[in-house]
């Protein structure tokens, strides 16, 4: 890839970024860094300021205060140079709907100063890679949501940008298409791209990002590695599936009434057919298993997992990822430690 940065360090540096729209503080002093060759997930509910952040970093919006540098270029003072090193895939497909997939990609290649033949070759290469070869000649308006998003990603990749912004790349996509987009993003990162990804899906951040910045109402409320953030919230959840599904509530009652040390908040997850027990220590895990053995309540499956990012968000901001935010059902956590009995 041609324009990758050779230096190590932050590819994106944001300090004290402020952008107000009237009374609305879209960005209210945001600091963040995206290290080179990594994916930073910017996580937050609707209206947290994610899109404004991306628009400032892609020179579409001028900040009221603060600084932002991308690949060393200042967004305010060097916007023209900056535009050479970035790629943007917005929440809404930024391709020309009346043009075919190939025409779109060819046009962008030409705008990036590729010679005509090279622009055609690059368009075909990317169409192939994003499984759009068959649809290449159809106007983009006839594409499905997922195809459009893939075309959009392909369009952002033509110039092999050093820094790629993905603004909610899978919002509104069905799970299968979402997985396709994820695979492509992972592949780009594998090839060395630096990515700033905004999302309101916990699962997406978990899948793609190595580090996370959680923002809420224009402010950074937490940041760090995904695992660190989860650890910050503390505790694990012990999930127990009884052998006899009929004894689910009996099992939950047995645990909560036993008065084991430090165990509180036992809950029944009917959907999973499991009892959830928040625990902090290994001793508590042993105590629960011992109790169930003593009571003759057979266990089909038992495991612990770190809290989901939904829970992390709740713990950090003191509120749910609220109103209208299409939060995915808590993902089956990757970090599950399983003990099958």
């Amino acid at each position, binding site marked *: 890839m041609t324009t990758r940065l050779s230096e190590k360090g932050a590819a994106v540096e944001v300090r004290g970024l402020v952008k107000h729209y009237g009374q609305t503080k879209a960005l209210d002093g945001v600091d963040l860094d995206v290290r080179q060759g990594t994916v930073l997930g910017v996580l937050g509910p609707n209206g947290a300021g994610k899109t404004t952040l991306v628009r400032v970093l892609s020179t579409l919006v001028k900040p009221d205060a603060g600084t932002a540098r991308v690949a060393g270029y200042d967004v305010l003072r060097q916007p023209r*140079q900056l535009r050479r090193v970035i790629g943007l895939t917005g929440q809404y497909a930024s391709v020309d709907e009346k*043009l075919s997939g190939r025409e779109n990609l060819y046009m962008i290649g030409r705008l990036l100063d590729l010679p005509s033949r090279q622009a055609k070759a690059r368009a075909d290469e990317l169409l192939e890679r994003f499984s759009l070869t068959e649809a290449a000649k159809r106007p983009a308006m006839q594409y499905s949501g997922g195809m459009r998003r893939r075309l959009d990603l392909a369009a952002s990749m033509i110039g092999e940008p050093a820094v790629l912004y993905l603004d909610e790349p899978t919002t509104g996509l069905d799970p299968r298409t979402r997985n396709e987009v994820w695979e492509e993003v992972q592949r780009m990162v594998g090839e060395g791209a630096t990515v700033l990804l905004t999302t309101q899906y916990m699962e997406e951040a978990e899948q793609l990002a190595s580090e996370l910045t959680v923002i809420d109402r224009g402010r950074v409320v937490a940041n760090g590695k995904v695992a660190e953030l989860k650890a910050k919230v503390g505790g694990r959840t012990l999930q127990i599936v009884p052998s006899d599904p009929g004894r689910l509530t009996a099992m939950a009652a047995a645990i909560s009434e036993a008065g084991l040390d430090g165990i509180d908040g036992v809950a029944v997850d009917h959907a999973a057919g499991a009892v959830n027990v928040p625990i902090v220590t290994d001793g508590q895990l042993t105590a629960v298993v011992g109790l169930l053995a003593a009571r003759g309540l057979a266990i089909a499956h038992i495991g612990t997992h770190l809290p989901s990012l939904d829970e992390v968000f709740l713990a950090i901001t003191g509120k749910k990822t609220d109103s209208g935010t299409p939060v995915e059902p808590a993902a089956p956590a990757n970090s599950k430690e399983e003990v099958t009995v």
Partner: protein
Amino acid sequence: MSTATATLDRPVKAVAADEGRIGLRANLRHIGALARRNMLQIKQDPESMFDVLLMPVIFTLLFVYVFGGAVAGKGNQQEYVNYVVPGLMAMMGMNIAMAVGTGINDDFKKGVMDRFRTMPIARSSVLIAKIVVELGRMMIATLILLGVGFALGLSIHTDVLHLLGAIALAAVFGASLMWIFILLGLTMKTPQAVQGVAMLVLMPLQFGSSIFAKPTTMPGWLEGFTKVNPLSNLADAARAMINGGAVAHSVWITLAWSVGITAVTAPLAVARFRKKT
């Protein structure tokens, strides 16, 4: 505001030397690629050419046959063809310029503008490409207009050079009008609003001019208005270049208007395009 920014240890000299300027050739190439986009859009949506294809036919027939007798006297339609067709050349430009405004406004609803504005291209190139393609559409409309005119008996009393001059003058003035409508298109919220405002301006300018009828037949105040209306100057210039007569005065006034309008509205439109969020 926080700690001092740790700068990337990217070679500072290289950054200073590279001002990110876009050379003329690159700029022309970008305009070409964007104009190609606008043409492909037309290919995908051929109905968008209806105005260009039908407007000259309908207007010419309408004015010559419905109003021609009344304006020029019954049986004098032939004479009126030579009066109104050059005038309609001026009107064509204005109507097509209006479509630019609604088109730009509609374009902005699409994410593709965001992509253009985050690419290393001059932002004016997007607007200029649009104007280039619209001028092409205007040329087609003008050729159809002249074709219909000839069919109805239009005769050129000068020469081809003068005729081409009239077409070129209408194009120059049309291009300057497009900047006004681009500015309007970037300012108003919806294409409908753009159209509404445009019609409000368009109607008095078109009809309060020498395009359709001789101003001497109008009341004094209106005649006064037609004299300052640049469309009258353009219509008079085109008429003189086709029918013969003194050309220089109205041509110069039309060119002055074109330059003046462009000088004021083009920078405003580009600035507006740059800032639009």
